């Protein structure tokens, strides 16, 4: 018998093992839900899968009686717009600041400590300030995401730039490259896949900040909806929404991985994360 560290499952077994926890959770839920509903058919806490599917379908396809909107899609569009804006702006800022602080000693000395302190501020503590400063509209929500993840991305990119072997920078100079050209042709392309990695890691926090700000002040959005219907213990809406958010987050993660794989075939790092 080989040691267990030397035993690897074959493909089908591996797949089955990966599915196992999902199936288990689902089973446990179904059993618990059935037990509760058997006692009280109106129990709101653990709705049956079919009830949730119905509710989800209603939210996705039937116009709301109050506003005439397709609630799920309005919420999804609003949330994804905020998230996308916040994440894209954070990426742009992270790339710019990270490359400059990583590559140019004067800029590093000037801004690196500042960014380090900035990243220590708990973003949620900033939320009231952001609402006061930017109003309760879209801007404050996008700003919270930026506050939450841009410093992390900046620092990560800076670190990646500093990790580039000096040999490469010297080599570029012996090929006649200016500082600008080194940024453009040596640093930027090598740091870009790492930016995507950092973004992937930051995406979880970005969702957190999005939902937090939507919970507090919004008129639509995935986070807003969950916290709205919480008052009525409307688990039939909440649980499918949570699953939907998870699916969106998962898709974003996969998309970023695919972009990295296809746009940067030379890049091997970060694949296992």
């Amino acid at each position: 018998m080989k040691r267990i560290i030397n035993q690897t499952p074959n493909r089908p077994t591996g797949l089955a093992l990966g599915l196992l926890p999902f199936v288990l959770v689902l089973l446990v839920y179904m059993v618990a839900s059935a037990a509760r509903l058997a006692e009280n058919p109106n129990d709101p806490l653990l709705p049956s899968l079919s009830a949730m599917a119905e509710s989800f379908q209603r939210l996705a396809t039937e116009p709301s009686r109050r506003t005439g909107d397709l609630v799920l899609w309005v919420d999804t569009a609003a949330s994804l717009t905020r998230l996308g804006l916040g994440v894209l702006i954070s990426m742009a800022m992270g790339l710019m600041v990270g490359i400059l602080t990583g590559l140019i000693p004067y800029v590093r000395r000037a801004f690196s400590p500042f960014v380090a302190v900035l990243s220590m501020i708990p973003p949620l503590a900033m939320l009231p300030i952001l609402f006061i400063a930017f109003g309760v509209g879209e801007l404050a929500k996008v700003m919270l995401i930026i506050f939450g993840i841009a410093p992390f991305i900046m620092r990560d990119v800076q670190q990646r730039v500093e990790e580039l072997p000096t040999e490469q920078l010297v080599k570029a100079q012996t090929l006649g490259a200016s500082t600008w050209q080194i940024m453009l042709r040596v640093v930027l392309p090598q740091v870009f896949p790492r930016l995507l990695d950092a973004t992937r890691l930051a995406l979880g926090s970005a969702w957190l900040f999005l939902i937090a700000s939507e919970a507090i002040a919004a008129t639509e959005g995935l986070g807003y909806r969950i916290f709205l219907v919480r008052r009525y213990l409307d688990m039939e809406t909440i649980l499918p929404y949570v699953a939907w958010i998870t699916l969106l987050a998962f898709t974003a993660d996969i998309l970023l991985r695919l972009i990295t794989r296809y746009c940067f075939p030379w890049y091997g790092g970060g694949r296992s994360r």
Partner: protein
Amino acid sequence: MSAVTARNLWKEYDSDVVLENIDLHVPAGEFVTIVGASGCGKSTFLRMLLGEESPTRGELLLDDAPMPAEPGPDRGVVFQKYSVFPHLTALKNVMVADELAGARLTGRLFGSARRQARERAMDMLQAVGLDHAADKYPSELSGGMQQRLAIAQALMKDPKVLLLDEPFGALDPGIRKDMHALILDLWQRRGLTVFLVTHDLQEGFTLGSRLLVFDKVRHDPQAPGAYGANITYDIPLQRQNPALYDEVRERVAAAEQETLKESTR
């Protein structure tokens, strides 16, 4: 082709003396190999020639003018590793020199200028025997091929001086022989001035036209950093001398022992 001169050259890091009082004149077109115990300052000397480090004292001249204080296209370089850009294919690694020169703002060429750069790069790849691997990324190349690529890339700017820091140190002996043939051929055809640091004494003795041995002449057992290395042998290699080879080998081995003792103390 350029001459290199050092006069009373010192390099210190804080209180550690790495090189002390180096005097050297290397006429244009010479192929200098440098050997010495590890940590004795060979790479430091090369970094000064590159302009990556500046002398603490003394003069370092390139064709009678002070060595520029930063790396530039007149001095090409090949390191033991990380010499090529991992995000560019072999062809683009070689093309990049012309692209940088031709497009100051974007660093990229288009149209006929690009075709021209491509052709020149292909010729260079052919010269180092890599034309069949033009579209491969460095990670897909063997160690020897990567170093060929690094040499091709370094030669695109027609540097006057080519600096190589243990370029073949990680290669198998058979491949090393091929690389020796390549570098000698390029040296003779292009009239380069070459400085090559090596760990392999055999390589140092057979490859170039002149061998320099870096070693500490004085030791202070209480303070290993008190004295730096100097050039203890400066051997023209046209007249090869087996007795001298043995002597140098013993000295270098002894110096390695000394370094080992110092670092374990």
